[in-house]
C-alpha cells in the first residue's frame, strides 16, 4: 500500500496560462494606486525637502512631482506603466509556455 497513488500523485497536469488583460489591470491598479499613495504619504509627512528621491521619477514621468497635483499625475503614469508591464509579462510568459509546449 501507499504506492498506488504516488505514481499519479499530481494535483494538475495543466500548465497555467496568464490572462494578460487581467494581469495588466492588476498591475496597473497596483502601480497607479501605489504611486498615488506613496506621494500622498510623503506630502502628509511634510518636512523641508518633501520626497526628494521620489521626485526623481519625473525623469521618466513628465509632469510628475511630489505635490497633490503630481499624485494624480503619478496615478495615471503608475497605472499606465503597471498595465503595460503586467500585460507584457503575461504576453511573454504565454509565448514561452507555447513554445516550450510544442
Amino acid at each position, binding site marked *: 500500500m501507499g504506492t498506488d497513488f504516488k505514481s499519479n500523485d499530481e494535483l494538475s497536469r495543466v500548465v497555467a496560462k496568464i490572462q494578460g488583460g487581467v494581469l495588466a489591470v492588476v498591475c496597473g491598479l497596483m502601480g497607479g494606486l501605489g504611486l498615488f499613495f506613496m506621494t500622498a504619504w510623503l506630502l502628509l509627512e511634510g518636512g523641508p525637502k518633501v520626497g526628494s528621491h521620489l521626485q526623481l521619477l519625473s525623469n*521618466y514621468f513628465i509632469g510628475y512631482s511630489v505635490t497633490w497635483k503630481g499624485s494624480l499625475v503619478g496615478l495615471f503614469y503608475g497605472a499606465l506603466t503597471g498595465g503595460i508591464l503586467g500585460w507584457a509579462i503575461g504576453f511573454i510568459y504565454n509565448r514561452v509556455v507555447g513554445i516550450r509546449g510544442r
Partner: protein
Amino acid sequence: MASHPVVVIGAGPAGLTAAYELGKNSSSSLILEAGKQVGGISQTVNYRDFRFDIGGHRFFSKMPMVTELWHEILGDNFLLRPRISRIHYNQHFFDYPLKATNALAGLGVVEALLVCFSYAKVKVFPNAQEENFEQWVINRFGYRLYQIFFKTYTEKVWGISCTEISADWAAQRIKNLSLKEAVRNALLGQRGGKKGEIVTSLIEQFHYPRLGPGMMWERCEELVAGFGSQTLKAMKVEHIRHRHGRVDCVSARASSGEHFEFEGSDFVSTMPLRELIEAMDPQPPDKVMEAALGLRYRDYLTVVLVVNCEDVFPDNWIYIHSPEVKMGRIQNYKNWSPYMVPDPSRTSLGLEYFLWDKDDEWTWSNERLIEFGTRECAQLGLIRPGEVEDGTVVRMEKAYPVYDHHYQDHVRTIRQYLETFSNLQTIGRNGLHRYNNQDHSMVTGVYAARNIMGESHHDVWAVNTEKAYHEEDRTTSGNGGDRMVPLPVQVKVDELPIEEEEEIIEVVFAKLDPVAMGVAVGTISGLLILIGTVILVLKGGPVVGPNLSLLGNFLFGFQVTWGGSLVGFLEGGLGGFAIGYSGASLRNWSMTAYAKFLRWREEVNHRRNLLD
C-alpha cells in the same frame, strides 16, 4: 421445478438491492433466503417490541447512488442521529474517535509520556515492513497506543493475533488519498451550496431508519414484490447444479425439510464463498475446494438485556477493550433511535461477543449467556444486575470474513473458478469475502443487476477496492439536534458532477512554468533598466543619473552610459529571470505543500475511525 428469469440467493442488502434494481427495469426475480427474516446482518430483530440491530448500522455512504437508493426505498423514514462512542479500557472511558488530549488525560501522566515517547520512536524508526495489522498500526500510532487502543479489541473481534491479520484490513478502511482527492474533499466538499447547504460531518452524525436497518429491507422486500418478484424465506440453498459453464438450477431445502428446485437464466449469490463452492454440483476441482475450506469466518453473538433504567449511558455504542471481559462492544439501541424501545423508561442493551462457532460460548444456553452478559456489564460498572428484567440472544454465523495471510490467494483461486460460469455472479460481504459495509454490498447488487440487463460490464470485485467508488457525498444542512429529538433527513443529490470538480482543481492548481516566468520577468526587468538608463543618457547634464548609477553596487560594471545600459539589460535580465523562476517555483511548491497538508489532515481523521 419452478423457473424464473433470475434467481437471487440471499435476501440481505446485496441480494435485495439486486432484485430491486432488476425490478425497476421490469425484470422479476426469485429470492431465496435461508433465514426467517430479510436483511441478513442488517436485519432488525424484534423481541417483545424491543428492536435491535445486529452490530449497529450507521447509514452513511460516500456513494451518492447508495444514498439515493436508501431514500428511494425508505422515503423520509430516516432520522439524523448524533454519534457518540467511547472506548472502555482500564476502568476509564476514552472518546472515540480518539482525541489526543482526552486520551492522554485518561491515561495519566506517566503512561501519556510513554505513549509520546513510543510515538516519537516509531516516527524516527518505523517498521520497514507493513505486512500485518500490528505493524501497520504501530507505524501510525506507536507501540503503546497500539497496545492500549487496538490490540485487545481487534483480537477480540477477529479471534486471532494482530500479527496474523493482514495489513489489508486496515488499509482497506484507511484508503490512501491522492492529492487531488484530498483537495477536492477539503475544498469543494465543504463549500456552501446554492441554497446554503453544508456538508454534514458524517463522522459525528449519521442517518438511521426509525425502526432500525431492517425497516429498509422489509420495505425493499415489499417493493420487490410489487415488481412481481418473490422472496422465499427459510429456504436454504444446498446445491447449485451446473454444466458446460452455466448454472442450470439450484436446489433448496425448506424449514419443513421439503426439497425444491429452481431454474433460472441468471443466478446471483450472496452465500459465503465457502458454502457456495461446497454447494456446487458437480464439485469444483480439488484446488478450488481446498481454497474454499481455507476461508475463515468470524461468528457473532448478541446478548440483549432489557434494563429497567431510562438512561444507562449516552453512547450509541462503547468499545470494550478491557481484557478482563470477553464482551467486545455494547450497543444502546434507544440511542440509535428512540423508536427502538416500546417504553422510554426502559433501555435495551446489546452485548456483542465475537466468537468461532466451535467456541464453548456459542453453544451456551440463552439463559446462561444472559447471566454471563449481565455479570460482565456489572463488572464494567454499566448496570446493576438487579436492573435486568429480560433478555434474549441472537446468533449470527459468518458475520465477518477473516483477512488472514492466506485469504487473498484463496479468494483469487475461487474467483478464477467462478468466472468460468457465464450466468453466475457473487456479491455482498460474504459473496466476495470482503469486509464490505452495507453500502458497498448494495453497489455490488446494483452492478450485478446491470450486468444481467446487458449494460456495460461492471466488475463487482472492484467495489470497495477502487477509489472511484469512494466519491464524496453531500447532504443538505441539518442540525444534529438533541439526541432525543430526531430530525427527518433530506438528501440532496444534484451536486456538481465529479468531472467538473476535477476540472476546477486542474485549473486552480495548474502549475506556473518557472522558466517561462523567469524569461518574462527577466525580459521586462532588463528592458526597464535599459530604457531607464537610455533616457537619462539622452537627457544628459553635468552629472548623468547619479541615483540610478547606484545600481552599480549590485550590477557589476553598470554605469549610466550607453555601454552600461547593455550591461544593465543583461544583468537586470538575469536577476529578473532568477526572481521570476524562484517565484513560480515557490508558488507551485506552496500549492503542493498545501494539498499535502490537506491530505495528511484527512488521513489522520480516517485513522481515528479505524475501529468502526
